[in-house]
């Protein structure tokens, strides 16, 4: 924590002029930077790396499932691959992705602040994150883990042959990066809002980040202690979860999902935030029902702590608790639906433009809605008994995580790319990529709903030949999806050098981040802005209409 020694604030000339990208060219000026914008880019590089590692594992999983007897020839290898895919994607891409990149970059800008509350802590989290990531990757490459990303006991403590402890240590360490990041965000939002920026004048993105940060801060420590107990049991044969001496293996599942269900909302809440920024901008309209949208984020965060039991309906929990968890899970659908309706209401009678970020946002709404509605199927007790552990569940959460969250991430990345890099991305290519991503995604995952309904179990190396057509379709879709992910990697990199120079506010958006230059100077704002009105103060549609006519 940085402690002020003086009331004087000194801003060096270099920090106020030019941009944060030109303020120092050495490797040191990046690796030891406490500038939230540079740290955001360090994170962006890291999570992109993890995304492609996790993606490669997914590609091999889909490759294996092309033929019923399994193309890879080894169930062991297959188990390790899907575990690697899950572990990397959940902890090293989905959970951190938006908060540490876009969040890190945008929170101070949206607050009208010069940095986060604890800049050195922010840098430290990046080192924790890549240390944890490196350890986990190492565990996965020197032999891997075959427990699935959920590490259920007693498989993980007693029977698994893999490097469970090493993988857990990596996740444990990166967990502290999560905790410190969430802490930094919460304190920054409380303490560093610009004059006049009241809570109800904050953009929805900040409310989403705030809500997910509360989850990060309160849920992650429980994962940390759970993984610690797991690792100690495996290392020293002292079994908290060992039924032989009176321990309870189910307790592990309770503790694990007490973190991992809120973690689902840690992954999707920032997506809500991003989409809530994009849609008003490209509809030229204030968001419909602002207070409902922000309180929906907060209530999702709160309710998400009380639904973990729906992962354990078939794990021998009592019927009464299962009924309760089922009802609570239905409850969480209410604020989610409020959000979807309010985005639609925002577009209604707006001047909708279909730029690439908007295409990603629209894709998000469609895919998230499917993912959310199928979530009700698996939250229903009777249906879940049939659907649990099948491909239906896999399809459901990929619709939320990939269809929803990854679409939103790409939407946000395109939306703020001009601000982050000072360059415009090629619009035509971006629209093409958004479209291919949407199509490829649906080809990959829609067949999995049908497979699940037909009864194909998840996490199996081989399957009944009846399922082959749909599996081949899914794998074909995965290759379309993979090419859609490679496209932005290519054209966004190209735009770094050859893209058109971006103006300060290319979208004509409201929001403090658009009022400084693109890219912003190191100090963000030479003069701290004063906020006098709510977010999304677009001119009333009538006046815009008259101008356009």
């Amino acid at each position, binding site marked *: 924590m940085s402690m002020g020694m003086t009331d004087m604030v000194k801003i060096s000339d270099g920090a106020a002029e030019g941009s944060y990208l030109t303020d120092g060219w050495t490797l040191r000026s990046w690796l030891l930077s406490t500038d939230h914008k540079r740290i955001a880019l360090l994170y962006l590089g890291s999570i992109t790396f993890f995304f492609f590692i996790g993606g490669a594992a997914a590609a091999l999983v889909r490759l294996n499932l092309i033929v019923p007897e399994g193309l890879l020839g080894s169930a062991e290898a297959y188990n390790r691959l899907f575990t690697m895919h899950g572990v990397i994607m959940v902890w090293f891409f989905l959970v951190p992705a938006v908060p540490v990149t876009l969040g890190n970059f945008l929170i101070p800008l949206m607050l009208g602040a010069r940095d986060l509350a*604890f*800049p050195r802590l922010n840098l430290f989290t990046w080192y924790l994150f890549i240390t944890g990531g490196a350890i986990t990757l190492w565990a996965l490459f020197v032999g891997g883990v075959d427990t699935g990303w959920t590490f259920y006991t007693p498989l993980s403590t007693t029977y698994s042959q893999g490097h469970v402890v090493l993988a857990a240590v990596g996740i444990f360490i990166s967990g502290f990066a999560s905790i410190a990041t969430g802490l930094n965000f919460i304190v920054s939002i409380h303490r560093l809002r610009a004059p006049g920026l009241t809570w109800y004048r904050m953009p929805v993105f900040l409310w989403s980040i705030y809500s997910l940060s509360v989850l990060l801060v*309160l849920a*992650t420590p429980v994962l940390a202690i759970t993984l610690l107990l797991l690792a100690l049991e495996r290392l020293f*044969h002292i079994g908290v979860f060992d039924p032989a*001496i009176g321990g309870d293996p189910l*307790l592990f599942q309770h*503790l694990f999902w007490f973190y991992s269900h809120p973690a689902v909302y840690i992954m999707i809440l920032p997506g809500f935030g991003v989409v809530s920024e994009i849609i008003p901008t490209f509809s030229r309209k204030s968001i419909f029902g602002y207070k409902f949208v922000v309180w929906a984020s907060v209530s999702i965060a709160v309710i998400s702590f009380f639904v973990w039991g729906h992962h354990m309906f078939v794990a021998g929990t009592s019927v009464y608790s299962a009924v309760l968890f089922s009802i609570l899970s239905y409850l969480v659908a209410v604020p989610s639906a409020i959000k979807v309706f309010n985005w639609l209401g925002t577009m209604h009678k707006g001047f909708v433009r279909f730029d690439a970020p908007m295409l990603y946002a629209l894709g998000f709404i469609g895919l998230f809605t499917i993912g959310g509605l199928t979530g009700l199927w698996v939250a229903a007790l009777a249906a879940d008994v049939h659907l649990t552990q099948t491909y239906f569940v896999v399809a459901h959460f990929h619709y939320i995580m990939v269809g929803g969250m990854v679409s939103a991430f790409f939407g946000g990345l395109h939306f703020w790319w001009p601000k982050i890099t000072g360059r415009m991305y090629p619009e035509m290519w971006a629209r093409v990529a958004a479209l291919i991503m949407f199509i490829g995604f649906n080809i990959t995952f829609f067949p999995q709903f049908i497979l699940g309904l037909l009864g194909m179990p998840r996490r199996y190396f081989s399957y009944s030949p009846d399922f082959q057509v749909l599996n081949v379709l899914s794998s074909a879709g995965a290759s379309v999806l993979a090419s859609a992910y490679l496209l932005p990697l290519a054209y966004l990199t190209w735009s770094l050098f050859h893209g058109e120079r971006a103006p300060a506010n290319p979208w004509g958006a409201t929001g403090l981040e658009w009022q400084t230059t693109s890219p912003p100077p190191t100090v963000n704002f030479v003069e701290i802005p004063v906020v006098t009105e709510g977010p999304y103060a677009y001119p009333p549609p009538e006046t815009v209409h008259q101008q356009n006519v």
Partner: protein
Amino acid sequence: MSSTVAHDFQYESASYQAQTAVAGMWLFLATEVLFFGGMILTWIYSRHWNQLGFDAGVRQTDLSIGTLNTFVLVTSSFVYALGLLFIREGNIRQLIRCCVVTLVLGLIFLALKFGVEWPEDFAHHLFPSAPNFKISGPSEGGARLFFIFYFIGTALHGVHMVVGIGLLLWVIRRARRGEFSPSYHTPVTVVGLYWSFVDIVWLTLYPLIYLIGRGR
């Protein structure tokens, strides 16, 4: 550390920054509550299902050392709080003295816990995966479970104590350099919060380890 001032440009004043640091520490302690809370929940839950074994385990613990340690730790927090009062008056010398006493009390706690009590436990075959575990019969499993929590709980608490001692040394060093004054002593406040929290964790562990079920 080198460019402290340059990193502070997001704050409007040093006092505002100081309050922010205190807020950050409170929030950090909230995460710690969840961290220890996860273990304590597991502890109480396991005790509920294995009461005989846990009671047998509790009776094997050394109540006198535990009680003495509780006294030592509470006193250390009290002395540290005195130091905070002194620095508010600008009395650096007394602050340092209080920090040193706190530090010594912390070391006494660690010495009693890990230098005396743990070796005794090992000598009495109380390590939970020991093949010749002291307690046998129907309560053996539960007693092993109890000692799992005993060792993990005290070890985690000990790790936090060691971190706290490191922080105390840091406060002492900065105090000796004359960096603290009545208007600026945020690190003293923040470390005090942490130290008291670690103290409170012990106050939760103490009955779980030494008291509950002892009379049964």
